[in-house]
């Protein structure tokens, strides 16, 4: 019997550019052409000023560890506990949920404010997930 799979995101027309970017090895954000607000999650207007003039750009992929839990139980399908569920604050401002790879999943190793950089984990032919690893590691 196959192992239960990790939850797969299903893109919508408004988020497709983000998932296309991840597949191409880019973390893509959006910026408002009128007020310069950088925001996440994706949507075709600025949640700061309501302008529909927005652009997609490639983010630096750099950020820091804002907060996290190390989940022990119950574990989500496709995950082996304990595993960290992190929130990363990006250099450009927005925060996003992610996992931290190449790092022990312990409070000693996961230090708030540690620098992180984006990496990409291919789930299947259509979905690649942005994840993060300690910067310069």
């Amino acid at each position, binding site marked *: 019997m196959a192992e239960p799979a990790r939850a797969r995101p299903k893109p919508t027309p408004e988020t497709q550019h983000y998932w296309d970017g991840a597949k191409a090895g880019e973390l893509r954000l959006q910026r408002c052409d009128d007020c310069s607000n950088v925001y996440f*999650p994706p949507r075709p207007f600025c949640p700061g000023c309501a302008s529909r003039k927005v652009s997609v750009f490639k983010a630096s992929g750099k950020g820091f560890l804002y907060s996290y*839990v190390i989940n022990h139980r119950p574990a989500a399908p496709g995950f082996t506990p304990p595993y960290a569920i992190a929130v990363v604050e990006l250099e450009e401002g927005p925060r996003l949920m992610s996992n931290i790879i190449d790092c022990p999943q312990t409070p000693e190793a996961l230090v708030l404010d540690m620098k992180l950089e984006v990496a990409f984990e291919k789930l299947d032919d259509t979905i690649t*997930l942005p994840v993060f690893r300690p910067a310069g590691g």
Partner: protein
Amino acid sequence: MRRNAVAVVGAAETTELGVIPNTSQIQLHADAALNAIKDAGLKLSDIDGIATAVETPQQIAHYLGITPTWVDGTSVGGCSFMLHVRHAAAAIEAGLCKTVLITHAESGKSMIGKLPRSIPADSLQGQFEAPYGVYGPPSMFPIPVLRYMKTHGITHEQIASVAVFQREWAAKNPRAMMKAPITVEDVLNSKMIAYPFRILQCCLVTDGGGALILTSADRAKDFPNKPVYILGTGESVETPMVSQMKTFDSSRAFTVAGPTAFREAGITHKDVDHLMIYDAFAHLPLYGLGDLGFMPHEETGQFIADGNTRPGGKLSMNTNGGGLSYMHSGMYGMYALQESVRQMRGIAPAQVEGAKISVCHGVGGMFAASGTVIFTNEK
């Protein structure tokens, strides 16, 4: 809204609380509703307004045999019932209905007739949170707490003390699920759920329900029980995605709902005799004390650890034992409201002597929503 224009004239929980394997979720709604109607000395046909969450108002109205002139299906998580009280008070004031029934019930433990909850893969949560292994509230609600602790200088021991002192309150409540005394060491050595939280810092999972009946204050004096007046209310929402909160140092929804209720009530924090802060997890009372303006966030941990909220302390908080020790069927807000009403009626098992003003503050989702109701027993 005018202060004290509307009152709670009926309040009851389900006949049983805890593990109720012989009753479906909708029947738990009905059990709570019938108990509240009896408490108010009313007939079902007297009810002309109905509000509920998760289950739809049409489901509850039909099951009870009520055809209302006003309905509210606001469903924003566990504080939905605080919002129902606020909306019902406004509706009664506006003349849309006269007598509102608010019901909550959940077969949270036994899962009988419980509606499935799922996150669609093409929702924002399904795309940007679920793939990273969040799986139920214990893996999500504590995500902000390490940042909160670092920003405000809060310790693991201080947060553990929340569970310890609420257990002291629970020991005074015959209907509380968990009554055995615990220590900070017990909490910090209990089974790890999602670091930094252990099982004694997470709410119970139980079956049960509760219902409230509200009517205008000028009618309230004719009811069998002491009326409990609505002095002030507030509500807000922030985001269904915990990762997208504006900051983890505070809850934006709390900072709107709480202060709005205080302003409407025209009271200061010194006037508060009794406080309920929805405690699905042990950090919520700290966020609540800070965001409602009782003290700076930096002082909340020490304030609780020093015993100020325990029985006999200067600010009686979560006097039923809370979601951590009393009961938590999934949407705890109704039980917090029930305890505030009991305290204002003067009939709580752990009664705060002479209490005249009770603040009842709720959260919905993972800091997604908030509702605050301030009650008084003096008009």
